[in-house]
């Protein structure tokens, strides 16, 4: 039982965080999926196991799973459990969001540095080349 505790020890619930507990849990599950620590198809802990592991009520975990399901991040198969959704749906969307964020940030910094559009796209091409070399 102690090992189950430590299995989710990375998920934290803060009493000083103004957001409700289910939102805090959703965010941390999304982060694990986006980071591929929880790859597509991975089975999520059962609602009761996660509740016991985090010392949080069953209804709170249920709410978090239901909302993640409606976002398409996880899929629940009746009687079988919940799984991380396959890439194209959920994790893909999360990555898309991350990409959009980083691109927006890069565009901003480019403007601050006074780079032209061509200069900025050249930098992106260079970054891609660098990645290929690795």
């Amino acid at each position, binding site marked *: *039982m102690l090992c189950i*505790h430590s299995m989710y020890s990375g998920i934290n*619930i803060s*009493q000083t965080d*103004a*957001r*409700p*507990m*289910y939102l805090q849990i959703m965010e941390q599950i999304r982060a694990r999926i986006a980071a591929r620590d929880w790859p597509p198809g991975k089975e999520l802990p059962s609602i*009761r*196991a996660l*509740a*016991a592991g985090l*010392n*949080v*009520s*069953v*209804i*709170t975990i249920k*709410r978090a799973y239901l909302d993640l399901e409606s976002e398409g991040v996880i899929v629940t198969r009746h009687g079988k459990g919940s799984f991380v959704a396959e890439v194209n749906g959920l994790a893909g969307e999360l990555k898309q969001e991350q990409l959009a964020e980083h691109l927006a940030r890069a565009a901003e910094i480019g403007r601050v540095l006074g780079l032209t559009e061509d200069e900025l796209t050249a930098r992106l091409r260079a970054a891609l080349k660098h990645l290929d070399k690795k």
Partner: protein
Amino acid sequence: MNDKHIEMRGVRKVYRFFTLDDVSLALEPGQIMGFVGPNGAGKSTTLRLLMGMVAADAGEIRVLGHEIPKAQAAAKRDIGFVSAEMRLLPHTTLGWHMEFMKSIYPQWDGGYAATLVKRFNLRPEQNARSLSLGEHVKATLLLALARRPRLLILDEPTTGLDPVARHEVISEFMDVLRDENRSILFSSHNTVDVERISDTITFIDRGRIVASDEKEKFLDRWRRIQVQLPPGVTLPALPNIVKHEVDGQFLTLTTNEYSEGLRNLMGPHVTHVHRMNLEEIFVANVMFHREARTQ
């Protein structure tokens, strides 16, 4: 199998200086219900009625499908009851109590009891007289938990425990709930614990149930709304406002049924909408009902 673990309907109990009236409660298997109320609200009386320790003057009580108090013996085989006032018998040890429980309850789980002794940092050979308050509480909880009852009824189980002990005890409660056929009803005025682990919450005040619902619904519906009204502007009549405080141009409204529609009624004058924690909801709810009852 899907029968409710606890069902109280219209229960009434009259004492000389206190009346518990029209109390209705329902607890489903697999759930934790937090039972919250100020001192003297009727929490302990309600729990004692459930245990058949006192008889109701009116109403129906069923626990684990058994009629109470008539069939209380059958129900109690599968109920673990702990009250913060309980103490081990003087001149005995925890070990003596464990042997005693083992001799009367066939489902006593000696292995689990030994695990709990370690987790709660207790010494079975220590004389009960030298136990601290917290150790008494943990010892009585151990004696109830190791019977693995289907229903745990706990009266202020975390009172008198330090934060570490509270954490240990709450972890054990959550472990019980891994089994969806078991349930817990616990009373407390520690709203932080209640907010964290309860599926449903029932508020009681002055002998009456004030509200009973899923925890998430309380947290979703209640909001404190701050409004700044320029001179000469007034708000339209607003529904579901339980508290209304005015300080010059600044208004603070508390609602028990927040919605976008309600916000839109207040137009552009809303400056902040705050979620409320369970303690704030509890206090606002109790004060609102007290006002309603005295009017």
